[in-house]
């Protein structure tokens, strides 16, 4: 039972990060039906930028920790927003009316480009997160969790509530929902579709930056290839929830995090010690395959047809 509760808590932490990243995939897909495979790299750049700022301020000394974190987060969010906007303008907008495969290929191209740029800027070695948070551990029912995990889950929760408010309670959000349901008619209402599309990229990238700082401070490590696996899993979470559906991305993210953590916790027992917890990655992709086979529209998805 201890291991169950422990892995549940770890899974929720990881799931909160997946959920934020998955929202970036799902918002863009919901509006233009494109899978932005470079989104994982946006998250990676967010982590790198946050690390750089935080390390610089920490080594300067005398700056209070919350300000250091705030500055790191702000820098990461701003950079990623610009990056997301630029990606759409450079790689996707010129291909808006091209066959579906074309933007998918540029997405992969952008992903490789960003990875290599990051490698040039930040090097090919693992970057350690500066030791600056006094980790506090709490114990509940035999499971241990830290203040970092609490901060991650809380930040993710607040961010998602803010996003839901934006999408469902504001005029801008109504315009975004209208555009995703019928872009031609939304334009008739006076909505500038290009702006809404840019906005989806910008907001998604901002969420990615927040997730990047979270995952960085959780594992205390960053690497130029970290965005690939993270992006793939968050994409799986978005598919699990029903791609294009925001609530689906949130639930899918949390669910995938929990499935993965529980899988890693029990895989040793299940296979009689043949596979260890480092096989945890297989669970995410098993989920992806199962969803695609039996419920391709995901848990919350309603669309079945392909959209151009």
């Amino acid at each position: 039972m201890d291991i169950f509760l422990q892995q549940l808590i770890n899974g929720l932490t990881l799931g909160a990060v997946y959920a934020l990243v998955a929202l970036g995939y799902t918002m863009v897909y919901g509006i233009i039906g494109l899978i932005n495979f470079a989104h994982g790299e946006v998250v990676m750049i967010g982590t790198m930028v946050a690390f750089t700022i935080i390390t610089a301020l920490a080594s300067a000394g005398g700056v209070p920790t919350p300000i250091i974190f705030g500055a790191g987060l702000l820098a990461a969010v701003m950079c990623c927003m610009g990056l997301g906007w630029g990606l759409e303008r450079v790689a996707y907008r010129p291909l808006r009316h091209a066959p579906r495969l074309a933007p998918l290929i540029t997405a992969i191209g952008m992903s490789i480009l960003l990875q290599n740029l990051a490698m040039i800027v930040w090097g090919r070695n693992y970057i350690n997160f500066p030791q600056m948070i006094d980790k506090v551990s709490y114990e509940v029912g035999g499971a241990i969790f830290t203040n970092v995990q609490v901060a991650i889950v809380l930040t993710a929760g607040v961010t998602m509530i803010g996003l839901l408010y934006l999408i469902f309670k504001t005029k801008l959000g109504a315009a975004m929902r209208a555009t995703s349901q019928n872009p031609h008619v939304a334009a008739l209402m006076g909505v500038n579709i290009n702006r809404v599309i840019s906005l989806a990229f910008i907001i998604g990238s901002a969420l990615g930056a927040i997730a990047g700082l979270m995952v960085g401070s959780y594992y205390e490590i960053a690497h130029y290839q970290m965005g690939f696996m993270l992006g793939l899993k968050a994409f799986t979470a978005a598919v699990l929830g029903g791609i294009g559906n925001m609530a689906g991305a949130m639930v899918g993210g949390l669910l995938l995090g929990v499935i993965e953590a529980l899988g890693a916790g029990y895989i040793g027992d299940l296979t009689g010690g043949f596979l260890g917890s480092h096989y945890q990655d297989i669970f995410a992709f098993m989920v992806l395959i199962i969803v695609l086979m039996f419920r391709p529209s995901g848990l919350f998805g309603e669309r079945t047809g392909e959209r151009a």
Partner: protein
Amino acid sequence: MLQVNGLRVAYGGIQAVKGITFHVEEGEMVALIGANGAGKTSTLKALARMLDSAGGSVRYRGKEINRLPAHDLVREGIALVPEGRGVFPRLTVAENLEMGAFIRNDKSEIVRDMAHVYDHFPRLKERETQLAGTLSGGEQQMLAIGRALMSRPKLLLLDEPSMGLAPIMVQKIFEVIRAVAAEGMTILLIEQNAKLALETSKRGYVMESGQITLTDESQALLHNPKVREAYLGE
């Protein structure tokens, strides 16, 4: 108010609209009738900038609008009720109407106009919080018209408002169209139901395979033998 000169629309190499010329005066209702595939909807889509025309000019209140982006037209005062209604299915009825007022910021006036739409269509008021996708076809048509009115247009473009509706619903919709026209709205009505369109409008144009072949006062067209034979089934 609206002056269309030599408008052409082409899909690939095929011309759907072959250089048509017509106009709509302020305050009048003009009908554009014709059989399925005559190019009526293509004409309207080009006017509303939902597709690029292949040539010709569209002047609205003296201004060339043939190259404006679609989202600027409503700011000029043009609202289109698209073919097939085009309601936002996963937005509520009230949210659909609010989207109609997207370009406006005068909150209290928007609330008043919404009440006015509900006066025209009490059925919509009853279904205010329902998702538009759950409405019947006739109710969706009501919603599409109400939504267009929410932008306070000066020119209303209606694309086949009777399509696919039960006769009783068609009557209701046209009652409201007449009421809106009586309030002074300028309307360009596109219809396959020639009789209904000509009975409702002041002037009419007949369109045939991408060209305008006849134009007259609607009453005169109703009695024109050619029209009677081709479109009124006599």
